[in-house]
């Protein structure tokens, strides 16, 4: 019966950890916001490339496309905002501070994989507990 109890406890712990992983993933994901990395440049310098009027937001070179990122250090954000709450982040400052922002995409994938993995483990342990319990019950009359 000891083995049955241990398996039951482990299954409960795994289910609990899955719940913690789910909540942590949701909490981290809620901090993500649309961000455009940008190397700021004076408007006169950016004008050398032309097309300044076509581009909204601060002047400079856009690095990649907008991403949903989790950035806690407020000092890297530029004051300008874009459509749909887009924030601009100084890419050079980010590099200077050695920050590599976590992506919502990464959090979501890792969270889903962790939750599914822990739930699968919990289910396996719970099935193991049931098997162990039945085995113990079958063995009990023979032992008496």
């Amino acid at each position, binding site marked *: 019966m000891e083995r049955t109890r241990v398996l039951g406890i482990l299954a409960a712990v795994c289910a609990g950890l899955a719940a913690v992983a789910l909540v942590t993933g949701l909490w981290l994901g809620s901090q993500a916001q649309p961000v455009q990395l940008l190397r700021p440049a004076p408007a006169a310098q950016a004008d050398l*490339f032309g097309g300044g009027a076509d581009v909204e937001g601060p002047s400079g070179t856009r690095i990649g496309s907008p991403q949903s990122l989790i950035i806690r250090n407020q000092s890297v954000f530029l004051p300008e905002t874009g459509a749909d709450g887009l924030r601009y982040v100084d890419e050079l400052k980010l590099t200077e501070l050695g920050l590599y922002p976590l992506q919502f995409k*990464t959090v979501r994938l890792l969270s889903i994989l962790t939750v599914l993995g822990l739930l699968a483990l919990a289910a396996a342990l719970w099935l193991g507990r049931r098997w162990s319990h039945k085995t113990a019950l079958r063995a009990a009359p023979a032992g008496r």
Partner: protein
Amino acid sequence: MRHLLILPALLLASAVAAPVKYAVTDLDSVNVMTAENETDIENFTAITNKIGGTVTFDAAAKTGSADLTVDGASIKTGVTARDGHMKSKDWFNFEANPTIRFKTTAVTWVSGDNYKVSGTLTMNGITKPVSTTARVKLTPANDVTKGMKIPGDALAVSLKMNVLLSDYGVQHPAIKAGRVQNNLPINLKFIASQP
């Protein structure tokens, strides 16, 4: 008499229309190449400032050519381990072939500062034809260009192209499995000037 007047005018026009050769400046704060890739786990942008080469541009005829190089070994992605992978044989093999080269074969003016450009892109030792759009703007030397330590007139060029990793010998299983996108949008932005 009229012919005598037309001749100098034609000579002057041809002199103005002469193509000028510009060299890519070493302005690390301005020159940048980015390549964006999507993977299952995150999207990342590879960056370098190490762009070189020359651009020949005829402002009057609105045509030109370019022979550009990018130091692939200097590309950074924000993750040191991934930078190492990029240089390995599994990916771009920049350890063996560090130079990315773009050479134009035809340049057609579209409108304003916009041009349609055909050329060849060499990466990982493989050369493939590519088509791209480019914005080319010539600014005569002024206080801004002097402030940026640009030696002469500033020829600002920005171009974007889409390539497939598989076209350049990158056959990593992660691409076949769809975990890494085969498509690679490349953006190049730099200032060239008369040396």
